């Protein structure tokens, strides 16, 4: 895994875990790598992984079964989407809005582009 420069490592690892859940590499109720395994794989301090897992637990994305390990929560996919949506609205949307405003892009134009994009990428 390549870490980017601008975001805290523990959040980047949270994204990494979420990505795995969304892509269904790790399915609901399945066991995920332990703190130590994850630390070794990503070459990161185990305390950092612990912080990531704590965060994901509070967001109900993973759960800790004492003595056994961490498991993907039942409704993890919804939780991940929820978590990401909040994050997107809070952090990424303002930047987008700023550009839309500065570049004077109309909502009509935006809507057309959006629909095109969906068609091309997701065949919806």
């Amino acid at each position, binding site marked *: 895994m390549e870490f980017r420069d601008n975001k*805290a490592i*523990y959040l980047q690892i949270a994204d990494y875990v979420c990505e795995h859940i969304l892509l269904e590499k790790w399915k609901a109720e399945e066991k995920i790598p332990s703190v130590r395994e994850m630390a070794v794989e990503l070459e990161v301090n*185990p305390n950092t992984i612990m912080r990531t897992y704590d965060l994901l637990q509070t967001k109900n994305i993973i759960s800790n079964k004492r003595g056994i390990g961490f498991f993907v929560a039942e409704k993890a996919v919804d939780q991940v989407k929820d978590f990401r949506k909040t994050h997107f609205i809070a952090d990424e949307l303002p930047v987008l809005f700023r550009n839309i405003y500065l570049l004077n892009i109309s909502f009509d134009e935006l809507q057309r582009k959006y629909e095109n994009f969906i068609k091309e990428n997701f065949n919806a």
Partner: protein
Amino acid sequence: MIKVNNLHFGYGKNQPLFKNISFQLDAGHIYGLLGKNGAGKSSLLKNLAGLVYAQQGTLDVFGFDPAKRQPAMLEQICFIPEEFYLPAVKIDAYVKANAPFYKKFNHDYFTNLIQEFDIPVSQKLINMSYGQKKKVIIAFALATQAKLIIMDEPTNGLDIPSKAQFRKIMASALTDECCIIISTHQVRDLDNLIDSVIMLDENDIALQASVDEITEKLTFKKVKAVDDSIIYAEPSLSGYYAVMPNYHQEESKLDLELLFNAILTEKTKFKPYFN
């Protein structure tokens, strides 16, 4: 686990290296010790291991005074120095002669580490390359399961794959019972491994804080222009790398090199954030 109080140390009376420094290290952490050349990183490590004697002040290393060099303390410390020597024997002979001094030495773990590091077992230690020798003593040190592991520039001399192996091994070696302290210039090799930072400058500890504490109080980011809110900035291709107070609870990634330069040039401006 380790308490240092009012440590004064220097080589000779008129060349003080540390004036009245105090700090504490706890188990379950990897500390990164940073400082310019000659700031005293190695000397501080040697003080902890009882290899040199403090002029004033007290050191408490899990209840022992390191200056007494008692076996019960020594078997709980492993020191990987920058310069070292290994004798003209094979690995098993070396282990046979040295491992019995460490009661908790784990032979299976040692064998695993040697395999993971790809070290030729049949070769005499003295004929190995610097990097290979270094990997042998790192493996030995970790296999002792010592409470305090001290490493002075551990990644020096390691090739690119070995550095990755080293990081993996260190990530797995940290337990709740042990404390690892690594002095380094090669910040990029270790920045995701270190969870606490100690910086030495001008006979004193310029900063001791956990990575979480640092990123809670400061934010590291690329900016287009420098303004008053920025404490320290370095020019880059597209603007500046900047350190500023974390006004908006941003969760940025600690840039150790930037922080190091920032602390050295703007020490007084950072003081209020970490006290």
